[in-house]
């Protein structure tokens, strides 16, 4: 066991490949440092979302005589959106794992699935937004709708930018192959994509499911 080997040795003798960024063995591997830095970015992004969640929670009752969430939301569509994003998160994880194990073809197949599911999510969301605006329930109708469009729209913009980044990364894999630098970018991208799914869990719970109960 590697753990036992580490404990048997004094800290100074920890091999570099077991370094974890806390002294023994020197700096942690680049992969861990890069993922940590990107994790900090993701947390800051989630903190930005928390402000939008707070705004929605505070304003969701202020409909100014306009339509309420219970009248506007179609939970069947939201369920399909949720499943699209969840499956896309799964294929993203499987795809990046395939890339780390040196299987570029498998990665490309799962990247296509990931892109298709993410695009399906965005399509349903944009259709929903367009339908609401057509019904006169656009972002300028009430404070509730302003905060709704800001929160859900910001998430949608993140998903759209994630799709653009995925195309860029697939191009890198095709041109450069699975070099360590490309693999690190893929790892960061998968962290981003999983984090978007976590934010979506908050969105469908707070906005869509609790809309009729608050």
């Amino acid at each position, binding site marked *: 066991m590697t753990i036992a080997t580490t404990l048997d040795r004094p800290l100074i003798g920890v091999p570099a490949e077991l370094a974890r960024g806390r002294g023994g063995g020197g700096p942690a*591997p680049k992969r861990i440092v890069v993922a940590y830095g990107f994790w900090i970015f993701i947390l800051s992004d989630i903190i930005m979302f928390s402000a939008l969640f707070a705004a929605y929670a*505070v304003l969701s009752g202020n409909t100014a005589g306009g339509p309420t969430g219970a009248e506007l939301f179609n939970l069947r569509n939201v369920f399909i959106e949720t499943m699209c994003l969840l499956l896309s998160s799964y294929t993203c994880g499987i795809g990046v794992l395939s890339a780390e194990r040196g299987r570029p073809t498998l990665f490309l197949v799962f990247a296509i699935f990931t892109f298709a599911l993410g695009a399906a999510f965005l399509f349903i969301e944009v259709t929903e937004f367009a339908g609401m605006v057509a019904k006169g329930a656009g972002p300028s109708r009430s404070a509730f709708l302003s905060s709704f469009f800001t929160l859900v729209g910001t998430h949608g913009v993140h998903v759209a930018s994630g799709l653009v980044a995925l195309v860029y990364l697939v191009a890198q894999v095709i041109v450069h192959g699975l070099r360590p630098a490309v693999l690190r970018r893929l790892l960061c991208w998968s962290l981003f994509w999983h984090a978007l799914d976590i934010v979506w869990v908050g969105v469908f719970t707070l906005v869509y499911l609790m809309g009729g109960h608050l």
Partner: protein
Amino acid sequence: MSNPERVFDDRTPGVEEHEPTASYLSYTVGLGLAIVATIASFIVAQTNLLWPPGIPVGLIVLALAQIGVHLVFFLHLGSGSDSTNNILALAFGVLVVFLVIAGSIWIIANLNTNMPMSMQ
């Protein structure tokens, strides 16, 4: 997991470590748990399976459970030594998120109670 032939030579710090932390199985288990939590959320919200005044609490619990599943099975935040720094950062993030959301709701609820708007 453990490879008896692994050689602990003095490699340059910062070199790549080719040891994927995840497996296809852990992703699939995570997907199954997340789907169960999602379906449970939608059922709880649309039926009276739960005592109706308890539905928001039930939904929050299910959401937190699903976020936990995502963190462990998709983002691989575990008890391993690789995760320690990430979990500390996450703990700080959760603290800030809690302060922003709970603080906003608390303050605005107070304002709404103490400064009622005139009903035109």
